[in-house]
């Protein structure tokens, strides 16, 4: 009897270990898959959310309570997705990669796919070797699940929530996967990986600090029409995207009008909540293409000559001597309110472009 019990325990133990190992082998775990989706109507727009959470996103409310900003962004995105009755919404929540017993990788990242406001897929996934190229895994999932575009005026938007994307040398952006390079160039090529053929995005929203920059605009220009980003600090990291519901009442809302509505809503909210500067820029990439190479080249020369520290907050590019305000303002719509404290700017308005000093 004793021998039999010992034998049984041994078997159970080995079974548990086997299940444990097998669970770690799959790079995705399907948690929810809608079996019999009702025939959805053709979507008027597609929105892709990428919420970065593999770093510090702690902030505090005015009552002192702690909040994880990435969780807040996820909840907002889910709410938008459930109300997107005419759209298709993909949400990627990239979290720190963790391992069981330092050996078996866990599926930490989350993926949600909504069509006409109904959840179609939810799964957890992780990066395997070869997935350490920015957005490569997400683009693969997106391309596998997206619907065919049938509407002639269909619009596609990409929303990025995270920390500042550096101009170059983008290693160590993630806490857990330092080998994944995240900088202007990899961001541009990463965005491209979501597209097929000569498709172009209608709007890219970068909800981070310091990314309304010529270098990022130059990288996105071949793949996007409009960019909404902040030239300097952006408190709480987050631009409001619920203006997407404009497309539910007016399907011909343009990408510029959508960007303008998001900027106005965000600007009004932040004006009531924060004492730091608020800078939001809508950049018409078709208009800035006439001068973006020249402007970026001037910045490169300035960097070579002055070696500015990449860590501090951006300044308004018009503070720098090479900036030609008349030439470099075409195609820019800037929302600006200076900080209540700190050194005042020499300028009453903002150029909409951010530079390192």
């Amino acid at each position, binding site marked *: 009897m004793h021998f039999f019990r010992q034998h049984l325990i041994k078997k159970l133990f080995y079974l548990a270990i086997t299940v444990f190992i097998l669970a770690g082998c799959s790079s995705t775990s399907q948690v929810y898959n809608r079996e019999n989706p009702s025939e959805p109507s053709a979507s008027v727009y597609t929105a892709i959310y990428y919420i970065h959470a593999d770093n*510090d996103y*702690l902030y505090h409310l005015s009552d002192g309570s*702690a909040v994880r900003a990435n969780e807040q962004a996820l909840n907002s995105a889910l709410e938008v997705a459930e109300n997107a009755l005419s759209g298709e919404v993909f949400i990627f929540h990239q979290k720190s990669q963790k391992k069981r*017993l*330092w050996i078996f990788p866990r599926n930490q990242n989350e993926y949600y796919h909504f069509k006409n406001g109904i959840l179609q897929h939810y799964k957890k996934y992780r990066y395997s070797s070869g997935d350490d190229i920015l957005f490569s895994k997400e683009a693969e999932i997106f391309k596998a699940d997206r619907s065919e575009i049938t509407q002639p005026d269909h619009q596609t938007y990409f929303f990025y929530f995270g920390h*500042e994307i550096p101009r170059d040398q983008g290693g160590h952006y993630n806490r857990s996967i330092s080998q994944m390079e995240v900088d202007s160039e990899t961001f541009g090529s990463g965005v491209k990986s979501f597209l097929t053929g000569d498709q172009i995005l209608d709007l890219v929203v970068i909800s981070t600090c310091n990314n309304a920059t010529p270098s990022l605009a130059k990288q996105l220009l071949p793949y996007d029409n409009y960019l909404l980003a902040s030239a300097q600090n952006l408190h709480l990291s987050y631009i409001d995207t619920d203006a997407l519901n404009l497309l539910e009442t007016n399907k011909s809302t343009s990408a510029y009008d959508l960007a303008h509505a998001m900027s106005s809503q965000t600007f009004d909210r932040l004006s009531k909540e924060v004492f730091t500067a608020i800078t939001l820029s809508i950049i018409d990439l078709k208009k800035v293409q006439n001068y973006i190479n020249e402007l970026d080249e001037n910045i490169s020369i300035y960097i070579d000559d002055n070696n500015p520290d990449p*860590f*501090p907050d951006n300044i308004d590019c018009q503070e720098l001597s090479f900036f030609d305000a008349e030439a470099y303002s075409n195609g820019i719509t800037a929302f600006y309110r200076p900080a209540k404290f*700190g050194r005042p700017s020499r300028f009453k308005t903002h150029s909409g472009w951010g530079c390192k000093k």
Partner: protein
Amino acid sequence: MKSIKILLYTVAMCLLVQTVVTAQTSNVSETFKTHFNKTVTQVADADNADNKRAILNNSFDKMKTAINRIETSGQLSPAELAGLNAFKSDIDLKSAELNGLNGFSIVTDEDLDDFSKYAQQAIEQADRNVTIGLGTVLLIIIILLLL
């Protein structure tokens, strides 16, 4: 039977240690954010302007001292050092403004609550982040607690 017990205990210990390590993994900005959040609460609760100003100055000094000690410990990579230096420069600026130094007008008594929130919001922006090893973060926490 005994060997299975030992094996089970080993696995349990591994899981326990992993949980503890994961819970403690942090980066330097989170540590300072948590510290400064207490400062903002204390400033709001302080009953007069002198106390509010003293609390802010003390908090800035603690953070600068912690950074100085970490920098001199020689454990940091150039990127980590650059990130921490930028953070320290920002604290220097806030400290100068609070006290009306380096060309700043002094923050008025009635603006001290707003200024403490402004400093907190500036610290909590989503700019570039500095990730530093767990040991260094623990050292910063100890310094912030002891000083």
